[in-house]
């Protein structure tokens, strides 16, 4: 392996970068707000985690870039960590110095530089002592991060799982309490009283959770891993060829029961969150066909969501404002999907000859045009203009009116299962292979006998169908829809979640939706910083794991193949 060289300057540069990040989180008020959420009483808040996250991140990159041995990692971690403390220290001196305060007050310019922020940077100590503590703390965190990166994955994985789960439970203590509260006979309430004080974990409970998680993970990793028993791993071929083995059957049964009981276990608020996640899973699966399978970058995907929603609305609304037909949900549903498919094809035809960026720009335009048309006075007699469509019918299922988050959850669950099944079958079908060939090379695919027009339009149509279904369910849930609900952000969200999850991967869509749709809903109190965190996540993902959380087989191979060719080239270069 090639020796990694670096100079002191490199380390200092990285440290300064970490310092900028740490300063930035403070100057925009994020640290102070996050500090109010206590994870583990009395000493660890979300703000502390954020304070150290800049250092952890930057040390991660620095160690991967520069350090090949453990000693080096130690040094890199310590130096980068310590240097990261510089700007916050400078800031707290500026903010506390009487001399400077006479000249100008920093708060006049940067409103978020409060006494509280300085206190966070100084751990509530005197400026000089506090600064030293910050340097030492950052250096220690840097070293720990470096050591962590260099340890054996056998130890790293359990530790990571333990930390993530403990902090997660601390962060979502309210949601956990609520879920536990729904357990029968008050068992849950006693458990949550044991776990939490003042909505945060106690030191003891945090330790127990950490040790349990780490221990279980370690134990599971030590077990001999035969391909079958490992994790949750179903392939369609396996099931149709061999049937399910016992362990898989049990796993599947547990998952089914949990999915069915979920809304009653988690309560109304979390059911609504799950509903939103489910909607985006539906859309993500559809967009995944267009982008992941067929390789067509579509940024106007929200249009089909809107078509589904508006068709459902117009056909079922009970007001006289819109010329509603007063149909019921189930009669209107096929029309909603059909209209979406129809427009999928209509909007697909003009872009048949476009590729890549051009396609992206034009579809982006289409998405906006549809929203503006819905808003226009011209179509107001049908679509309601800015007033939207009101009083959309709720689905009635065997005499039960569905409208609550809990019941509508079942709607998206059923939709997601159906659509997921269709997506899997499509991927392995003849059409799936046509898409794959087309994505790889349009000319060669055509020379191979593949009808590009038909293949592309099929992708647009099926993608639109899934999105239309999501739209129809959405409008039945919210009962009133307005043009501004169908903005560009929905397309971007759907695209981001399949990228983060892993392009072309079905489990990836689920994970992506949970992370990009579910988490922000749970962290509403920090919604001010939602887009910032979103952006950071996307950038970090692209740097660290560009293939997504759960990459599809073909994209994984692609990345591996690139590495292979690179090493081959290296080998050739060194041998010659």
């Amino acid at each position, binding site marked *: 392996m090639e020796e990694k060289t670096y100079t002191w300057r490199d380390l200092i540069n990285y440290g300064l970068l970490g310092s900028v990040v740490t300063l930035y989180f403070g100057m925009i008020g994020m640290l102070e707000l996050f500090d109010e959420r206590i994870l583990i009483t009395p000493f660890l808040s979300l703000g502390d985690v954020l304070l150290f996250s800049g250092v952890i991140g930057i040390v991660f990159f620095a160690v991967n870039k520069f350090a090949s041995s453990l000693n080096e990692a130690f040094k890199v971690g310590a130096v980068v960590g310590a240097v990261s403390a510089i700007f916050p220290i400078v800031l707290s001196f500026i903010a506390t110095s009487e001399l400077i305060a006479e000249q100008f007050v920093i708060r006049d310019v940067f409103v978020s530089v409060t006494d509280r922020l300085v206190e966070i940077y100084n751990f509530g100590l005197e400026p000089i002592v506090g600064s030293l503590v910050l340097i030492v703390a950052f250096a220690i965190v840097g070293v720990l991060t470096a050591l962590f990166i260099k340890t054996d994955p056998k130890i790293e994985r359990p530790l990571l799982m333990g930390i993530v789960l403990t902090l997660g439970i601390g962060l979502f203590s309210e949601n956990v309490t609520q879920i536990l509260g729904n357990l029968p006979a008050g068992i849950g309430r006693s458990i949550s009283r044991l776990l939490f004080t003042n909505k945060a974990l106690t030191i003891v409970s945090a330790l127990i959770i950490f040790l349990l998680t780490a221990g279980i993970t370690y134990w599971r990793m030590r077990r001999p891993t035969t391909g079958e028993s490992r994790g949750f791993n179903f392939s369609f071929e396996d099931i149709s060829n061999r049937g399910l083995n016992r362990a898989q059957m049990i796993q599947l049964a547990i998952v089914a029961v949990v999915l069915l009981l979920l809304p009653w276990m988690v309560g109304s608020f979390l059911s609504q969150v799950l509903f939103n996640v489910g909607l985006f899973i539906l859309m993500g699966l559809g967009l995944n066909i267009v982008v992941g399978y067929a390789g067509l970058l579509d940024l106007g995907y929200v249009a089909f969501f809107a078509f589904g929603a508006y068709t459902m609305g117009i056909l079922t609304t009970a007001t006289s404002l819109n010329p509603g037909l007063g149909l019921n949900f189930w009669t209107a549903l096929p029309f909603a999907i059909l209209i979406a498919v129809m427009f999928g094809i209509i909007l697909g035809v003009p872009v048949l000859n476009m590729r890549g960026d051009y396609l992206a720009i034009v579809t982006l335009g289409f998405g906006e045009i549809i929203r503006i048309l819905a808003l226009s006075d011209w179509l107001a007699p049908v679509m309601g203009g800015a007033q939207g469509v009101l009083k959309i019918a709720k689905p009635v299922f065997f005499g039960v009116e569905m409208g609550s988050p809990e019941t509508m959850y079942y709607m998206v669950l059923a939709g997601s299962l159906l659509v997921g099944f269709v997506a899997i079958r499509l991927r392995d079908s003849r059409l799936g292979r046509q898409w794959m*060939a087309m994505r790889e090379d349009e000319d060669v695919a055509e020379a191979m006998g593949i009808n590009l027009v038909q293949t592309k339009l099929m992708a647009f149509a099926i993608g639109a169908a899934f999105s239309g279904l999501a739209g129809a369910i959405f409008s039945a849930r919210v009962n009133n829809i307005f043009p501004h609900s169908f903005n560009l952000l929905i397309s971007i969200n759907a695209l981001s979640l399949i990228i983060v999850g892993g392009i072309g991967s079905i489990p990836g869509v689920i994970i992506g939706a949970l992370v990009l749709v579910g988490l922000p809903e749970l962290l509403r109190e920090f919604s001010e910083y939602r887009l910032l965190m979103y952006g950071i996540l996307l950038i970090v993902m692209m740097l660290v794991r560009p293939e997504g959380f759960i990459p599809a087989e073909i994209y994984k191979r692609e990345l591996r193949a690139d590495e292979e060719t690179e090493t081959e080239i290296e080998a050739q270069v060194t041998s010659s």
Partner: protein
Amino acid sequence: MAMLEVNDIHTYYGNIHALKGISITVEEGEIVTLIGANGAGKTTTLRTISGLLKPRQGNVTLWGEDIVQYAAHEVVFQGVAMVPEGRGVFAKLSVKENLEMGAYSRKAGSGIRQDMDRMFALFPRLEERIGQLAGTLSGGEQQMVATARALMARPKLLLMDEPSMGLAPILVDGIFDTIKEINQEGTTVLLVEQNALMALSIANRGYVLQTGEVVISDSAENLKVNETVQKAYLGID
């Protein structure tokens, strides 16, 4: 009736008049070669025959049936397969998947297994590399994949665009041997080459293209001793 007749085709790229009235005939069982310098219009001719480009004037008939009316993917169903210039393998698919893709135009399942075995008999290298990604193969191996993939469609007529391009001389011999073998097994071949000497050594007849026109057409033997050809393409003074 000739198998393939290209009658006076004019093909354009926008305003660029790339083919200015090309006429070619290929009889069943032959190897016919198109030679000519870079930019002469060889690739354009093949792409017009395979339906990827439409001529503005003239027609292409296969067994007397006009195939200009067909889209590229339909031409494949008429029994014409192409090995594109620069090979054009599906880089991210395995060798096996590439070959399966080639059988795409056929009814599913009918003899694909046997055909694949035939390809492995023709190209033993590919069997060793069956699971490897086509993009990671060497140039010669990629050429094999592209050729085998085209043959998987069981074409009557195989169009090959510069199969020797970019290959080491030692591999070029092998490629031409294979083309002869394919031909002997009953596939008619229309071969585009810049390596005129090699092409003429296996072909029955040849056409020389120059700036979108056929300037000479003759039997391979005659072309080899033709003065113009020798000067321009065989490097003999």
